């Protein structure tokens, strides 16, 4: 049966793949607290297993990203500017990469925070993961936004979501600078190379919240344009 031209005029839907990509990214990110926890407990086997899962999810996300990028190369008429869509996709991609790198770093170096900082670091990490999950819900709100032409009631709900994202990001910033200050106090008592990597872990963890917020900003552009 030849392809019917009437059905041929409908291009591939891009919202669903974008959401699936985000789901894969979040699957990757949300493994991090457990990974850190098991390292803190000294359970290296479990940590390796989680690390492998993080890598798997990240690879899955990469595959989805490639498919989506191919779709974007067609001459398609889209309800949202192609550039905005690409921007969201790239930020999501960066988030997954960051989560993968972070998992790799702590796993390989068996890095853990000094006993008295562990709880606070986990709190910081969970805050960043929360903001990533909030970004995921916002990306899933694209269905409803598309339905209403990116205006009206749904756009207001979306703005509320983005407000949450802002709040989570400033909370994460706050926690990050507190932790950095406390690591600084302990610098002299810790191996210098470890200190270097602790700062890096903090900064990469904070990136997760930054990226979440950047996704939020891109979505905000869609409803205000």
């Amino acid at each position: 049966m030849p392809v019917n031209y009437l059905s041929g005029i409908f291009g591939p839907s891009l919202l669903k793949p974008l959401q699936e990509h985000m789901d894969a990214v979040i699957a990757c990110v949300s493994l991090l607290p457990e990974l850190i926890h098991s390292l803190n407990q000294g359970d290296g086997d479990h940590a390796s297993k989680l690390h492998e899962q993080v890598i798997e999810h990240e690879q899955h996300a990469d595959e989805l990203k490639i498919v989506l990028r191919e779709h974007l190369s067609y001459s398609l008429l889209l309800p949202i500017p192609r550039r905005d869509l690409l921007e969201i996709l790239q930020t999501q991609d960066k988030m997954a990469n960051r989560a993968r790198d972070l998992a790799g770093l702590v796993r390989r170096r068996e890095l853990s925070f000094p006993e008295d900082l562990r709880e606070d670091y986990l709190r910081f990490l969970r805050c960043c993961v929360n903001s990533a999950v909030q970004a995921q819900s916002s990306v899933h709100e694209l269905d409803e936004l598309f339905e209403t032409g990116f205006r009206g009631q749904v756009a207001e709900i979306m703005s509320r979501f983005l407000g949450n994202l802002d709040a989570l990001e400033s909370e994460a910033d706050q926690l990050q600078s507190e932790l950095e200050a406390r690591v600084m106090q302990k610098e002299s008592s810790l191996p210098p190379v470890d200190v270097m990597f602790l700062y890096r872990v903090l900064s990469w963890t904070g990136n997760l919240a930054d990226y979440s917020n950047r996704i939020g900003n891109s979505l905000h552009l869609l409803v205000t344009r």
Partner: protein
Amino acid sequence: MEYTLILLILAGVFGLFMAWGIGANDVANAMATSVGAGALTIWQALVVAAVFEFAGAFLAGGQVTATIRKGIIDSSPFVSQPEVLAIGMLAALLGAGIWLLLASWRGWPVSTTHSIVGGLVGFALIAVGAEAVQWDKIGGIVASWVISPLLAGVLAYLLFMSVQVLVLRRSDPLAEAKRYVPFYIFLVGFILSLVTLFKGLKHVGLEVSTSQAYGIATLIGIAAAALGWVVIRNLRLDPSADTEFRFANVEKIFGILMVFTACGMAFAHGSNDVANAIGPVAAVISITQSGTVAQSSPLPIWVLLLGGVGIVLGLAMLGRRVIATVGKRITELTPSRGFAAEIAAASTVVLASGTGIPISTTHTLVGAVLGVGMARGISSLNLRVIGNVFMSWIITIPAGALVSIVSFIILRAIFIH
């Protein structure tokens, strides 16, 4: 005239075949949008299409038939040789049929209307020459092929914007949908019946004045809206469906609207496209019966019936499969979008039918879908394919003409020595 009976039988067979092909392919396209949106099951679509295609063909198909029959070819050069005109009409029909068969087998976006018009022009050029073609009419028709998708696109854009402002962006879209959908249903009933009353019903012996037409059309619109209102009241909505996607129930209400627009689409299609099959048949009948090219005799009603039956047969035999395949792929056009495209396309097509202009239903529908896309209503449209669809009509005319010329030469060799 020799071979009168054979020519008549051939005309009947070719016309039926053409109508059958239209039913199997074009109608399926027109109905697939409603099936893809989930508003109709395939079997419901078949019933709706059968009833309303037939009604459209029978009630409003006369004007376009007249154009195909005598509006494109100037019959005066054929006064001394009426059998050439009869054979030419057969050739145009056969040529367009063969060309369409080839095109639909290959999946080319080809319009039935463009093929038959190309076929008529082709044979006239070969049989007599350029003076046998009513170029001014052709100019108008070709212009309408540009205007009709544009008009449908603009209408669809406006309709979709109206539904966003009135329903989708409101704080309670469900309540607004219940309130406004009957108005859209009224619009469908009103426009379709108004055009039909104005232009279509002369041949069934019904003459109505302008004010009567407006009155009756309003009544039909209100009746349709009331019916829709009752159905929406009794629609069982599932609040849990809205947790996954908050507009699931709103779309369900638009699904009811889409049942009505599907009826309108089928009606409009029948009113315009039946002529492609039976216009030439009517011409052959008139020539063979009178032995002249005068063609002043009215269109025999049984010819309209023949076209209607052919369309329904094609739909029943092959259309089901086509609707299923196309419908499965057109899920992007959800009811809140699909209805706008369908009302716009149906109104444009019926308007053209009333004026006697043969236009392409599918192209009009594609124009309407593009209009919704411009209003950011469709998640993605493949512009390259849309370009191909519109480009194809430029190719269809010479192609239809060429196949018709070959058919004409063969038929002439057989019937006129």
